[in-house]
């Protein structure tokens, strides 16, 4: 047993691949078999991650146990930012140009609404400093924008954890609610699907929600949703944070 732990500690990153791979497999099975894809596998997997972190001690979640320290490398800011940047490949600029100004408008408005609504609620619940306001507001964009903003402005780990949780709740909420409200909000053609993706953001939620509404709309919504994360990562830790910082 002691030898095993030593090997795991020495090969932390490789062990992390095994752990995360297993979590992903179980989560996607649960998503397809138990929820009929109503709750996205990604959202389940991230929730499992947060749950595991709960059993670690202190600031670094499960990574505070040496055998699991590799998770801190795999989930550290370097590899996180690297893999996020790579997702931009899915979005071709010539395609978003087709949505034109309206697409851009929905991206900027969606980011601002989520940011200020989220931050304001946080403010009234006791998170009154600019860093927490910005991080929680950014979490209301997507579960990526939250931690990216949090580490940029230097927010504490527990506030960053809240921002991830908000993003996860958003993705589950969007997945479940979209098929029921699509008619009322006019999500029934490519253009409104693009506007929907740009406003709401959460790529996993938007794709899963549209898949349940009308599968032919998925690529349109997913396209602008990918840009939502890029726009959020651009605006939240910079301009929007300055505005908050100036007011608070």
């Amino acid at each position: 047993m002691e030898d095993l732990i030593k090997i795991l500690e020495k090969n932390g990153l490789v062990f992390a691949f095994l752990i995360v791979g297993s979590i992903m497999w179980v989560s996607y099975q649960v998503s397809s078999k138990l929820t009929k894809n109503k709750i996205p596998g990604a959202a389940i997997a991230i929730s499992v991650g947060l749950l595991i972190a709960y059993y670690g001690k202190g600031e670094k979640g499960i990574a505070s146990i040496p055998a699991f320290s590799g998770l801190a490398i795999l989930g550290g800011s370097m590899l996180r930012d690297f893999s996020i940047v790579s997702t931009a490949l899915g979005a071709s600029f010539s395609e978003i140009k087709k949505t034109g100004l309206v697409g851009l408008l929905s991206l900027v408005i969606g980011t601002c609404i989520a940011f200020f609504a989220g931050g304001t609620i946080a403010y009234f619940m006791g998170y009154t400093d600019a860093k927490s306001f910005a991080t929680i507001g950014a979490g209301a964009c997507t579960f990526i924008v939250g931690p990216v903003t949090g580490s940029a402005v230097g927010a504490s780990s527990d506030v960053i954890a809240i921002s991830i949780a908000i993003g996860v709740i958003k993705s589950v909420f969007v997945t479940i609610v979209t098929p029921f409200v699509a008619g009322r909000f006019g999500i029934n053609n490519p253009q409104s699907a693009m506007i929907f993706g740009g406003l709401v953001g959460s790529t996993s939620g938007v794709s899963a929600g549209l898949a349940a509404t009308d599968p032919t709309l998925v690529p349109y919504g997913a396209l602008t949703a990918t840009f939502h994360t890029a726009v959020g990562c651009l605006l939240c830790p910079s301009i929007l944070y300055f505005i908050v910082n100036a007011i608070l």
Partner: protein
Amino acid sequence: MKIYGVALLAGCFLIGHIVGDYFGKLFHLNGNLGGVGFAMLLLIFTYDYAKKKSWLAKESEAGILFWSTMYIPVVVAMSSTQNVKAAMSGGFMALLVGIIATGLCYLMIPIISKIGKK
């Protein structure tokens, strides 16, 4: 070769971070401001350009695609290393923010759709 794609990604990533860092210093903040966002935009533009000139082979593209499929697993690893115990006190707020902020975005869909039709 796949490494060409990975190298292009790495180049965009680093330039984005340098720009973000520069902006951080410009505004007297310690962090990196929007570096990830800059890097993403840069990758979109260079990739678009390289594709038009057919500089990028399918094989090189696969190097970038591998990392984009690793993004959810990386986020899972990241969430498992957060201070969740301390965040539990904010669990109710997370629910509130997640639902209210998202609901407001839904309300904007018909309004922006109308602007688009004009």
